[in-house]
């Protein structure tokens, strides 16, 4: 699913590993989400939204 996690990481100066550790998944999972090869669970999507202090639909765009 299309997402803007790389842009958000740039804004917060975080690496994939930093973000992965913050939401308690592996770096490979973050990489797979960013490359749109893996859609996160609802739980992880909420964790990401919480981490970036926004709504899930601000990060993910299911229509594109």
């Amino acid at each position, binding site marked *: 699913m299309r997402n803007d996690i790389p842009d958000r990481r740039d804004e*917060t*100066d*975080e*690496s994939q*590993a*930093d*973000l*992965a*550790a*913050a939401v*308690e*998944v*592996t*770096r*490979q*999972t973050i990489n*797979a989400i960013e490359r749109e090869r*893996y859609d*996160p*669970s609802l*739980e*992880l999507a909420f964790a990401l939204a919480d*981490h970036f202090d926004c709504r899930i639909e601000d990060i993910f765009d299911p229509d594109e």
Partner: protein
Amino acid sequence: MSEHTTSATTRPSTRKRYKRIAYGLLGAGILALWVGIAVDRFVLGVALYWTGGLGMGLVQRFSPVELYDERDTTIEREAGHYTMKLFAYVFIFGTPGGLVLEESGLVTLPGEFYGAMWTLFAVFVAYGAFVIYHKYRL
């Protein structure tokens, strides 16, 4: 520098270290089994193999970090799905195909063939039981 702090228990390096310990224990157990067989100490080899396997399970169960995340679970589920599909094709086509070939006198099937087909049958019985169980749970 990131403004987000990371606890030692969720650091990727910690996860990797515990994974290495878990797989290392299993690897050591397998090695011990092979050495045990080679030096004719089969029982000791099997005991060490079981110990290694148990150690791996204990590390996975009690490590302070989650060793596997949701993507790992998805990968396992996909792998299991395709494995069952492969088994289904082998079972559905293999069993009657083998029996027809034997009946026609073209081949004489070894006992291993029947063993393999009964094993696959048992796998599908177990699979069906788990499907029914989870159907009522979810």
